[in-house]
């Protein structure tokens, strides 16, 4: 029997358009609203109920994650994005492994959230990992890892298509948020 919800947390998925944010969410969460809401309002909310281990007691803790899927389109006014970011407790920053500019823009997205909500637990998702073989032509040696490491946040190769690491990024973020609430140390990227 899953534990009852002890926490409700707000997290935002950010990143450039078409990196696969909505697909990652759809793979994982309760989705009741049409995706047209995202393009109309600039955001749509979904919900995931998960259980993570309580860092103090080791018991499972129920967490309801309310996930704001933020439209990556540049036409969404910055002031509206800031309104959506208000009160966010964790961030998943998503990029496309095949599109270098989407990686380069990650820092801006994350900083945009931090400018409203302060430094937060953050996970970077390098999505479309099922196409990694094609991506090898883009990166030299360990270039992808180096680029991601420079962001200062844990990063995972993910694939909404195969499900690779999808569960991991949401659970890891929830654990980090919980640890932060329990005043444990969580490595936060520079604000």
């Amino acid at each position: 029997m899953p534990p009852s919800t002890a926490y409700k947390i707000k997290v935002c998925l950010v990143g450039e358009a078409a990196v696969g944010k909505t697909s990652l969410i759809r793979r994982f969460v309760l989705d009741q609203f049409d995706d047209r809401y995202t393009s109309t309002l600039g955001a749509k909310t979904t919900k995931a109920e998960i259980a993570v281990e309580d860092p103090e007691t080791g018991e499972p803790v129920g967490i309801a994650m309310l996930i704001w899927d933020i439209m990556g389109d540049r036409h969404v006014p910055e002031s509206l994005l800031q309104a959506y970011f208000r009160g966010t407790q964790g961030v998943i920053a998503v990029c496309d492994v095949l599109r270098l500019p989407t990686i380069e823009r990650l820092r801006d997205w994350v900083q945009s959230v931090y400018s409203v909500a302060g430094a937060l637990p953050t996970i970077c998702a390098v999505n479309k990992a099922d196409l990694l073989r094609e991506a090898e032509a883009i990166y030299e040696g360990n270039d992808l890892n180096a680029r991601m490491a420079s962001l200062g946040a844990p990063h995972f190769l993910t694939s909404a298509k195969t499900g690779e690491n999808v569960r991991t990024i949401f659970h890891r973020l929830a654990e980090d948020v919980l640890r932060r609430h329990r005043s444990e140390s969580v490595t936060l990227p520079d604000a």
Partner: protein
Amino acid sequence: MNWSNGTQDFAFRIYGFHQPILAFSVSASTLTLDAGQSVVFTMNFSNTGLGSANSVWVNVSLPPQLSYVSDDAILIGGIRSGAYSFKFTNVGSRFWSFRLTASAVGAVPTGTVAETVFVFEGTDHNGRSFTRVVHVASTTILNPGSTSSDFPWWILGVAAIPIAAMVFLFWRRRSANLSVEEVFVIHQNGILLAHQSKTLTPDKDADLLAAMLKTVQDFIQEAFSTRERMPMRGLQFGEFSVLIEPGRNHYVAVVHRGDDGSFASRVGDLSRMIEDRFGTTLASWSGDMREVRGIRDLLPVLWGQEPEASSEARDRRKGRARHWRQVPDSATEGESPEHGARVGETRFTDEEG
């Protein structure tokens, strides 16, 4: 606002902007009247606010001693229905006046005082009940040849009973029209803190609705606010209204039908109570639901009742899981507890969110 091809905006009605300021007065052409003579009542109303009133009604209840002759409300756009209700729509900022003429009927003892009741009701520009004024005009009927001593007063007494009953039923119906469907207390970040539902079906998730309501609010504020950030105060869809009462770190959103005249003020009371008792917690809230459980105990304030005693609430909830859902009492569905439903009998079931 349209950010991509092929998508449509939603039709929202916005509260929180300019409001009308309505005033009403009545004067009579004479204070005394012989049988067969007429009295002209002049009704004046004005809107001195910057916003228009969606609708204004003037209901005139003539006493049995006076009979309706004519009116000129149509000259200023008034539509008469029944005996005698006048409706005016889209009342902008200006002054209006119309007249109603009535004549004294015979066979009443001299000195009889006839009381005509004028009820003025106006809405704000979104159709929400806003202003109510009641005036009573007294006219003394002078009836030569008849004296008060030979009048069978018991007849007047008997006649008054159905009138009193009608007045009572009018007020009862007006009050019973209020139906609270959903109550959401939402943190300013969009997380649902407390919820009570009468109509939400199990396939609708209250957390998601609360979060989307926050998203829609942010969108509308961004789309329509000017330099000053103004809170959205409500939405209207079909026969339902969503009344939104913002607090410092939370807001209360209530889906309801109808109004009993004091509902908005009770929603304000609830919001202030939440602010007083949970304001400090909400200012730096971590998401721990245990810290905000007590908010739900305050919701009975919406029905004009005292908040639940927290110890009783704890006992009642012992062993129950996350979300609570009010089960409508089929015998009282459509009525708020204040007007028929019994809050003490409200049943709650556990619901996994």
